C-alpha cells in the first residue's frame, strides 16, 4: 500500500468533507409523532443523520419533552436535550385530537415510508390512525411504536408513562450498578452506596437506536417483499437486552447479580482505580496484560506474576477483593496522566512489550469536550444553525467513506416548517393554513 492506512482513510471519511458526499437514506420519509418520549426523538434523529427526511409532528403547543432540560436551563427558548435531538427535522404542528387533524395525518402517512409513535397502546387505533388503518392506503408503511411495555402482552393496557429512570430501574441494570453498602454501615452513613442509574438518558437513547436498527431491517425487507409492517419496542426490554451474563448466571445457579462497585463481576483485570489526582480505568482481559500491568507497577517479583497461569482464579469474588486494595495502594502513588503514559511506554520497552494493560483516564465531561483527540475527529464541531447559531452537540460519530452522516441544523421552534411542509405535501395555501391555525388544528 502506497499511502499509510490512517491517512488514506482520513482523506475519505473525515467529517470535514461530509457535505460533499451523498446521503444513505435521502429517499426515505419519516413521520415522527413522538410525544413526551425521548426514545422516539432519538430514533428519528438517527435516521435523519443518514439523510432521511423527518417530519416531526407536535401538538400545537409543542412537545412536553422540550421542557425536559437540566436545571430548567433554556437556550433561546429551547431545552438543551431537545436542542440536541431536534436535529435535521422539519417541525410541524398538528392536533391529532381533532378529526380534521387525523385526516391530515392520514394524507401525510400515505406519502411516508416510516411512522414513529410513542402513545399508549390503543391510542392511535382509537384515533383511527393505527397500523391496520394506515396500511389500507399505504401497505408499504413501516409503523414503529415505542412504549414502556409494548403493544401486546399482559401489561399492554398499563398506562404508565415511559421515562428513562423507570426503564433503568425495571431492566435490572440499576440494581446491579453502584457501590455495595460497606459492612456494618447503613444508608444513612453511605447514601451513595445504593442502586445507581446512569446519568445520560441511555434508557431512552438505546431503545430509540434499537428501533432505528429495526426500521432499517424492515426497509430492507420491504425492498424484497414490497411489504411494510408494524414494529414494537418496549423500552425496558430494549435496555435489559444489554444485560450480558446475569440472566444465564441466575438460571444456572440461582445467583442474583448484585452491586460490585467499580470492580467487575465478570472480568479481571477490569476496574476503576484511584490515583493521586482522580481515577483511571485499568483493563487486562488476557493473562499477559495483567502480568504486564503488575510488571509496570514494579511488582513482577513481589506478586510472582511469572507464576500466574490463568485469569480464571482472579475473577473470583474473594480474589478480586484481595487484589483490588493491593493495586489501589500502588495507583494512588501516581497521577492519572503518569499511569496512562507508563502503559503507553510499557508497550514499547516493557518486558512483555508490545503487550500492555489498558490504562485510561476517567474524565469529567469537561475534560472529554476539551480533549484534542475528539476535537480533531470532529465529534464536537459546532453546528451552524440558522435559528440558534453555533451550537455544540455530539455529531459525526459514524465516519463513512461514501455516505457520511451530518447534522444540518440542531433544532427548530414549534411549527417552524408548517408552511413549507404543508405546502409541499398537501398543497395547503396560506389561507388554508390560517384557517387551520384559527381552528386549533395546527
Amino acid at each position: 500500500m502506497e499511502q499509510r492506512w490512517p491517512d488514506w482513510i482520513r482523506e475519505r471519511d473525515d467529517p470535514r468533507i461530509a457535505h460533499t458526499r451523498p446521503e444513505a437514506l435521502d429517499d426515505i420519509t419519516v413521520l415522527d409523532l413522538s410525544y413526551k418520549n425521548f426514545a422516539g426523538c432519538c430514533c428519528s434523529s438517527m435516521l435523519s443523520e443518514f439523510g432521511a427526511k423527518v417530519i416531526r409532528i407536535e401538538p400545537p403547543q409543542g412537545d412536553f419533552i422540550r421542557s425536559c432540560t437540566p436545571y430548567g436551563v433554556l437556550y433561546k427558548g429551547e431545552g438543551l436535550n431537545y436542542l440536541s435531538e431536534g436535529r435535521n427535522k422539519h417541525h410541524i404542528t398538528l392536533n391529532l385530537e381533532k378529526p380534521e387533524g387525523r385526516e391530515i395525518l392520514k394524507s401525510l402517512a400515505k406519502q411516508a415510508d416510516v411512522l414513529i409513535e410513542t402513545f399508549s397502546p390503543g391510542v392511535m387505533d382509537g384515533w383511527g390512525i393505527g397500523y391496520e388503518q394506515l396500511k389500507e392506503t399505504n401497505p408499504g408503511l413501516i409503523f414503529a411504536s415505542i412504549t414502556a411495555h409494548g403493544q401486546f402482552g399482559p401489561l399492554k393496557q398499563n398506562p404508565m408513562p415511559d421515562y428513562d429512570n423507570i426503564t433503568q430501574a425495571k431492566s435490572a441494570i440499576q440494581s446491579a450498578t453502584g457501590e455495595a453498602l460497606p459492612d456494618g454501615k447503613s444508608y444513612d452513613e453511605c447514601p451513595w452506596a445504593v442502586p445507581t442509574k446512569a446519568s445520560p438518558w441511555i434508557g431512552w437513547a438505546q431503545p430509540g437506536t434499537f428501533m432505528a436498527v429495526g426500521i432499517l431491517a424492515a426497509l430492507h425487507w420491504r425492498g424484497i417483499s414490497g411489504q411494510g409492517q408494524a414494529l414494537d419496542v418496549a423500552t425496558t426490554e430494549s435496555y435489559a437486552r444489554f444485560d450480558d451474563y446475569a440472566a444465564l448466571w441466575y438460571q444456572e445457579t440461582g445467583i442474583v447479580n448484585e452491586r460490585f462497585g467499580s470492580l467487575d463481576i465478570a472480568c479481571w483485570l477490569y476496574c476503576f482505580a484511584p490515583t493521586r489526582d482522580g481515577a483511571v480505568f485499568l483493563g487486562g482481559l488476557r493473562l499477559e496484560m495483567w502480568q504486564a500491568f503488575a510488571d509496570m507497577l514494579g511488582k513482577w517479583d513481589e506478586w510472582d506474576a511469572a507464576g500466574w497461569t490463568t485469569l480464571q482464579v482472579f475473577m473470583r469474588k474473594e480474589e478480586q477483593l484481595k487484589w483490588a486494595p493491593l493495586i489501589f495502594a500502588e495507583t494512588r502513588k501516581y497521577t492519572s496522566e503518569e499511569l496512562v503514559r507508563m502503559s503507553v511506554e510499557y508497550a514499547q520497552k516493557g518486558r512483555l512489550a508490545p503487550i500492555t494493560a489498558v490504562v485510561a483516564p476517567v474524565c469529567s465531561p469537561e475534560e472529554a469536550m476539551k480533549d484534542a483527540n475528539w476535537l480533531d475527529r470532529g465529534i464536537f464541531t459546532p453546528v451552524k444553525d440558522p435559528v440558534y447559531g453555533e451550537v455544540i452537540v455530539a455529531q459525526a460519530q459514524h465516519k463513512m467513506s461514501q455516505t457520511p452522516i451530518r447534522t444540518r441544523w440542531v433544532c427548530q421552534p414549534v411549527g417552524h416548517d408548517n408552511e413549507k411542509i404543508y405546502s409541499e405535501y398537501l398543497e395547503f395555501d396560506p389561507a388554508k393554513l390560517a384557517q387551520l391555525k384559527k381552528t386549533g388544528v395546527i
Partner: protein
Amino acid sequence: MAEETWQHYKEKKNSKPAPLKGIKVLEVCTLILGPAGPGFAAEMGAEVIKCEIPPMGDTCRDLTPFGYFFREQGASFAHMNTNKYWLGLDLHKPEAQEVFKELAAAADIIEDNLRPGVMETWNVGYRQIKEINPSIIYLSKNGFGQWGQYAEENRPSNDGASQGFSGYSRLSSFPSQPPLKSRLYICDNYGALMGELAVLAALHYRQRTGKGQFIELSQTEAIMRAMTWVWPYQQITGQVAMPAGNRDVSVCPADTFRCINDDFVTIAAPAPEEFRGLCTAMGRPELADDPRFKDHLTRLKEDNATEILKIIAAWARTKTPEEIEKLAEKHGFAAAHIWNTREVVEDKHFRARGFMTEVDDPILGKYFDHEFPVMMSKTPPKIKWGCRAVGFDNEYVLKHTLGKSEEDIKKLYDCGALGKWADVPTRRPPSNWDGRAGLHEA
C-alpha cells in the same frame, strides 16, 4: 387494530421469514464491541460467519461471573454469539487469508474490532477486499477510530476505557464520590448497536447504487452521542456537567428514593397531570399549585428541585415500593421498584411477549435469554441457536459456502490455516456433546 397485528406473535415466529435473510456477514471480532453487532444481525436472519484464530479464539470466552461457567461456556459469550457459523481460521497464514478472501468476495458485510491497520497486515483490509468486492460494506469498530492522536499511538481500548474517556462514568456517579463504572458493558454494546445502524444504512444505499463503503466507529464517540444535553450545556453555560446520583436533572421530579425497610423506588412525575397525581398520592394536593412547583421549568430549578425531592423522599420513607407502585397506577404517574435479574427472567409479561424467550439448543439444552428487542410483525427476529466451540462449523462453511473438497480441507488443516478448539473448557464443546448435535448439514 393492534390485537390483530400482534395476535399469536410468539407462536408464529418460526413460520415467518427473517428481515435480513440472505445477507452475508463475516466477522473478525473479539470481546463484546465486535461480536455483539453481528449478533444483532444474525438474530435478524443474516448469515454470520464468525472467524476466530484457533485454537483459543475469542477472548470473551474467558469472561464469566466470578469465574462461573454457563454449561461450560462463558456466560457473556453465550449471550451475544447466537445464530452464527463458526470458522477457525488463522489469518496470520497466507492460505487462511485466501480462504477469507474467497468468503469476502461473496459477502455483503465485514466487521472487525481490531486495532487500526491489523486487518491490512493480514492482507484482508478494506483496500485489499474492495479490489475483489467493490460493493463490500466494511465496518471497523474500536476505541479511538482509525485516525487521530490516540489511534496513531496504537492505544488499546475497551468498554471501561470508553466509559472513562467519554465522561459517562464521571457523570453517572454521586457528587463528591469516586466515579462509578456501569455494571453494563454499555459502551461496547451501544457501540455495537450503532455500528449495525450504519451498516444497515449503507446496505440501503448499496441497494440503490451498488456502491459499498468503509465505516469506522469509535465506541467513545458513539456513547458521547447519547449524552445529549451535556455538550450544549457546557458550551452555553460555561459550567461543567456534574454528577447528581440518581436524580435526573432534566426531569422533575425524577429520582430513586429509599422506602421503608431499606428498599428503593424510582419515581418520575414531570408532566402537569403526573405531578398533580403524585401530590395527591402524597396527600399534599396543594403542592401542585405551589409557586415553586407550578410548572416543569420552575420545578427544575436547583432550589425548587431540591425542595420537592426532599418532600417526596420523606414521604417515600414511610411507604413500601409496592404501595407507591399502586398509587402511581391509581394517580397516573410513573413508579417502579428496583427490579433484579430474577424478576426480569421470570416476569410473566416478558415471557408472554417472547422477550424472555426459551432457547432450545441442540448442544446447550434449554434456557431463557433476551430476544432481540424489536418485535417485527411480519419478520420476527429470533434466537435459533447458541454459541459453539472454535472452528465448530469449519467443514460446513468450506464445503457448503466455498465448495471445497475433502482434500482441500485437509491441506488447510495441515498447514494450520484451519483449526479447531483447544481441549480446554469454553473452547471445546460441552463434555456431553455426542459429536453430531448442532452440526449443520453440508
